[in-house]
């Protein structure tokens, strides 16, 4: 590969692209998504007005990383002026919504709801739409998502078209049977489905709008996080392909947990593993150079926890790490 072609191995491009509103960090479980997204958020906080970091992973790691308890509401991160974080579980927020409407609706409303929620993946997507509505009402200059492992994210990103179809069917149904249902529910003393359909429609609007934003490379980018191993690289390749199928911009790959043993190191495992990682790193460079910024992050001898360590770690996103000689 020519050196001129090589894109700089940093995330500086993300920091410089001021139009970005949504930044996703995604990859297989355990590759350091959370560390990466926290570091990125910290770096962004230094050059933007306000940053919100959201974790949609049911296994919440933000609290762990910052050593501070976060909840469903945006909370200011200790030690930062303009960095906020929140942890949401899309599925559970959906559950809440169902319960809430079950209380207000009758048996009929419940049935129609069951029908609507029988659409595969609707719970996740609606939970996400809920979050979006929430987030849109707040004013942050950029929002970083620490997403759940690969499949999850992609499903909801691909969701709007499915939902569009299903909801279109449902609303014609409601147009046809609505009057009858209304009469019946009038008889039984309930009147919820109009309300329900209105809400579904609204949801669809939100999801569609969010999706168009996601497909705009000026507004949204996806950062693939991986480690230098076969399976992780394989998953990353799949992720990249799927993202391009969904027309979501991605041009950054973070390779995490790289080992750099000292030259005089006698640790056999370290040396072997270093060799293997370098092999896959070469392959990744061969495959992605020219289109992707490939950022290399080292595996440290300590856990990256707490604001101070994260701050230090985050510098390596901007200034490439130099292995000790």
């Amino acid at each position, binding site marked *: 590969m020519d050196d001129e072609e090589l894109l700089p191995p940093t995330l500086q491009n993300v920091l410089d692209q001021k139009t970005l509103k949504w930044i996703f960090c995604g990859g297989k479980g355990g590759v350091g998504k959370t560390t990466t997204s926290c570091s990125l958020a910290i770096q962004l906080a230094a050059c933007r007005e306000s940053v919100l970091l959201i974790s949609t992973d049911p296994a919440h790691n933000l609290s762990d990383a910052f050593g501070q308890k976060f909840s469903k509401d945006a909370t200011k991160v200790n030690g930062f002026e303009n960095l906020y974080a929140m942890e949401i579980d899309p599925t559970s927020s959906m559950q809440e919504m169902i319960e809430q409407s079950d209380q207000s609706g009758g048996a009929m409303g419940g049935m129609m709801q069951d029908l609507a929620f029988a659409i595969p993946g609707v719970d996740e997507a609606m939970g996400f739409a809920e979050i979006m509505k929430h987030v849109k009402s707040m004013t942050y200059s950029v929002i970083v998502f620490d997403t759940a492992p690969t499949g999850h994210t992609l499903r909801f990103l691909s969701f709007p078209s499915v939902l569009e179809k299903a909801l279109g069917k449902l609303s014609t149904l409601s147009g046809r049977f609505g009057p009858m249902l209304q009469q019946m529910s009038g008889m039984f003393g309930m009147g919820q489905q109009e309300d329900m359909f209105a809400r579904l429609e609204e949801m669809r609007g939100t999801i569609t709008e969010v999706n168009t934003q996601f497909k705009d490379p000026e507004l949204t980018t996806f950062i693939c996080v991986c480690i230098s191993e076969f399976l992780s690289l394989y998953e990353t*390749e799949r992720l990249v392909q799927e993202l391009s199928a969904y027309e979501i911009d991605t041009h950054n790959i973070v390779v995490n947990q790289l080992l750099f043993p000292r030259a005089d190191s006698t640790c056999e495992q370290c040396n072997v593993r270093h060799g293997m990682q370098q092999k896959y790193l070469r392959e990744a460079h061969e*495959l992605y150079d020219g289109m992707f910024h490939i950022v290399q992050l080292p595996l440290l001898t300590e856990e990256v926890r707490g604001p101070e360590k994260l701050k230090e770690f985050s510098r390596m996103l901007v200034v490439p790490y130099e292995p000790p000689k």
Partner: protein
Amino acid sequence: MASLALTIFLLVLLTQLIDWVGKSLLEDWAFALYSRLLISGPARQQRALKRDVFREKQELARTSAQDEFAKWARLRRRVDKGLADLDKLNAQLSSARSAFSLRFKALLFLLTSGAQWALVWYYRAAPVFYLPPGWLGPIAWWLSLPFAPAGSVSCGMWQFACRRVLKLSESLVREIVCTSLPSVPPSVPPSLPPSFLPAFHPPPAHSALPSHPSSLPGPH
């Protein structure tokens, strides 16, 4: 009116020929010809694509994902893209095929049954030929049904007669061919069982014997 008789006979013969060959087989041939002549682009593309995808798949299988990940991933991308293209092309071709099949069936119908009906209806009152009076006695009026003049054979009846004759000759030929072909081998087996069976199953000889003659096929 010999030409009318001949025309109807030829039409019936054509229908019968098509029937013998088989409509689906004819359609296959016609479509092969059609796709070669008129939509050769997509068909050739499909063949080339199939070959390419196959070759790339083989290469993918030969490439180790662990040792040459970059090469493997590139191949994989190409294969995936090829398969997607192939799917699209297949859908396009199969829709072309079904459209063709509809038109072809309509054409066949017009050429055979449709033409027959039209002809029979158009010449419904015309005699195909006259029978010598008194030949068939009381059933002569039946041959002129529905509208042909009395004493003549109507188009409908003539068509019916032609078809019957063709079908009968078909079954005749079939019978001759079927009986003449297998008549050679059966001369060998009858000599075998009597010498074989007792040697292999000495104890149940009486139980085997009664069932034995009945199991022998045709030559008797």
